[in-house]
């Protein structure tokens, strides 16, 4: 155990909600992603990659900041807007790359490994950029070994989720992949948080958080992202049902 100078106690309800959002986002993203191999033109393929990567990156981002809201510290915290946005972009770009690799050509394990590495590094990159966006009267120190473990969890679980999504069919493809990807995102986050210790500084708390946005703004943005993911799930599943019914024998 780490002797954190400032303790982070996670609210169990919000922590559970963070997993739910990760699973919901992963479901949305992977349902969009499995359409990548079926795309009939380069344009359709690009659209599918962008939509799936954006959904996955958005889900990782939303999960991270719900989990940060769940982290109750005896410390005022705000978030740097530019770095917070950059963390979301980083997650999205990495996921687009990973899904594009996994969805190209004939399925092979090496593609899943490479795609999983991109997505896992995207999850980790998003997390640590998001952590760097924290503004508070404290500094963060990381246990390097545990940081490495968090990255390995993200990469391995992402590869497993991609394998399920692209290789399987049916319920395992739809739900199994999303549940495993949720483990990748949350596992990486909470292990990463365990690696962090927050050391208080002598800086004035008010000035430390002055140039960041607070939890209320963050909550509203998370609500927006989650609503968008839910709407995408609904629209995607309605469109799929419609197309399925229209398949001519």
């Amino acid at each position, binding site marked *: 155990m780490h002797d954190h100078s400032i303790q982070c106690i996670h609210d169990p309800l919000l922590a559970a909600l963070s997993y739910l959002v990760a699973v919901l986002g992963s479901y949305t993203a992977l349902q969009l992603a499995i359409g990548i191999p079926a795309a009939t033109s380069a344009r359709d393929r690009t659209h599918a990659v962008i939509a799936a990567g954006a959904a996955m990156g958005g889900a990782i981002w939303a999960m991270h900041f719900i989990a940060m809201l769940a982290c109750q510290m005896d410390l005022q915290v705000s978030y740097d807007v530019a770095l917070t946005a950059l963390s979301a972009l980083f997650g999205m770009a990495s996921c687009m790359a990973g899904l594009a690799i996994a969805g190209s050509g*004939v399925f092979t394990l090496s593609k899943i490994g490479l795609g999983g590495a991109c997505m896992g590094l995207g999850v980790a990159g998003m997390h640590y950029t998001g952590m760097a966006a924290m503004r508070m009267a404290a500094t963060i120190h990381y246990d390097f070994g545990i940081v490495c473990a968090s990255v390995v969890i993200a990469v391995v679980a992402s590869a497993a989720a991609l394998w399920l999504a692209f290789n399987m*069919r049916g319920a395992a493809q739809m739900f199994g992949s999303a549940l495993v990807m949720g483990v990748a995102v949350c596992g990486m986050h909470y292990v990463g948080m365990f690696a962090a210790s927050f050391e208080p500084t002598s800086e004035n708390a008010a000035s430390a958080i002055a140039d960041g946005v607070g939890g209320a703004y963050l909550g509203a943005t998370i609500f927006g992202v989650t609503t968008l993911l839910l709407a995408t799930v609904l629209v995607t599943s309605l469109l799929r049902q419609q197309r399925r019914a229209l398949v001519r*024998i």
Partner: protein
Amino acid sequence: MADIEFRIVSDRREGLLLELGRLIIASGFTLQRQRMARGNEGVVLTMLVRGPEQNLLHLEDRLGSHPLVQSFEAAAVDGAASPPLAAPEPARVRAPVEPVAEAPAATAAPDLSRVEPLLASLAREYPDIFNRVLAFEHALPQALREATSRYAGTRIGAWIYKRDYALGARLSLADSVKHIAFPAMRHLLRGTELGDDGLRVRNSPFTGNGLHRNSSCHFLRGCLEGLLNEPGHLGRPRILETSCRNSGGDVCLFTFAA
């Protein structure tokens, strides 16, 4: 052991010898000699094969249902006195091994006009389709039964693929069998199992109905072809019913090869 000379007519030269050679070996025969020539009917492949007599009907059945084979004739040959294979001549073709009435020498093209009206009903009733398929098969003339039933199967298989299995990565043949063909067949027939040797169907509705002599699950074979051909990236995998309950097997076994 019997020596048999087959005269096979096909419309395609490429891969013909390879495909049929594999089929012959899979049926327990060895290829002694062969000759290919282009004639008025198309490509004529003459093959002298040797193997166990009890497997002959099975081999003929598989040749007759092979998509590359338009028609074939079989003749028993005296091994010691067999002449070298030259251009096939009717004079050297001896009495057919099987009476024509029991084993039609030529395979007919599927009757598409009969299949089209059936498909809409099958789509409506899927997955409970076998009563209708059996009635359909029963109503077909013997000469059309195999090709037409198999064609109906391919259409259903392709439809199932597009409906339920099209999303996801392009899989290898082995993974396609495991993740597409197997669950799709199990949805149709609960007694379907995936073994090391292929797909095993324990309760094929096409066996024991007196309509066929040997391998009989042409609709199921067509269905598997539709499921595996529809993605497009696998080419045309060969799907064979290597054992059938109609010919004494414990199960109907379907094998797959690229």
